[in-house]
């Protein structure tokens, strides 16, 4: 399931040094749970994003493992401390080996 996967991230563009900012992320993905059956009664195989990480300039802020009980279009909200100017790196890991990435720059002024 590598089609139509689009990450969306809401993060502030600027912060003061050491400020705690709230990040909201959403990625479009069916998160097929492996529990559903198609119209012929065959189980639809599991296909989910199993891990999500957020780093700031290479330092980990959140590393989340996801199971099939996470809803379609996984949404995650959390806080990150911004020590300096730099980039927030967001990475989603798909069951099929695909990796989806997004980056947001934060300016400390």
């Amino acid at each position: 399931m590598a089609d139509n996967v689009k990450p969306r991230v809401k993060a502030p563009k600027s912060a003061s040094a050491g400020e705690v900012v709230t990040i909201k992320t959403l990625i479009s993905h069916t998160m097929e749970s492996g529990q559903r059956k198609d119209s012929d009664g065959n189980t639809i195989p599991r296909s989910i994003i199993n891990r999500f990480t957020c780093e700031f300039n290479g330092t980990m802020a959140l590393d989340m493992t996801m199971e099939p009980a996470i809803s379609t279009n996984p949404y995650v909200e959390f806080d990150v401390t911004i020590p300096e100017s730099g980039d927030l790196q967001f990475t989603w890991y798909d069951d099929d080996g695909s990796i989806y990435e997004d980056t947001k720059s934060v300016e400390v002024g």
Partner: protein
Amino acid sequence: LTVLPFRANAAGEDAIADFTGGADVAEGGVNLDAPEIAENGNTVPIGVSAEGATAIMLLAMGNPTPGVATFNFGELAGSTMASTRIRLAGTQDVVAIAKMADGSFAKATKEVKVTIGGCGG
């Protein structure tokens, strides 16, 4: 009307034991923010936080597989809170277990009543 969780919780207990390594789990110290009634089990907003936690595991004890997510807070985590949206197969207990920095564990449980289940069954 089914009120109680409709499945035995053995798998959930196993998942807890895996996470804690069999250590004692104290009640309290964890905030679990979940609705009392969820009309649609496909997307139930859940928030967790625990002061001093390094990781928080979230479980849906009545789902076919009880694991939901584990949040591991890194060095730059601004707080030990996170929220997401989860699937619930039916009315059941949602459990959050926090692993504290000193190696102890704490948990919170909340029952969520689900009108329409979220596992396509």
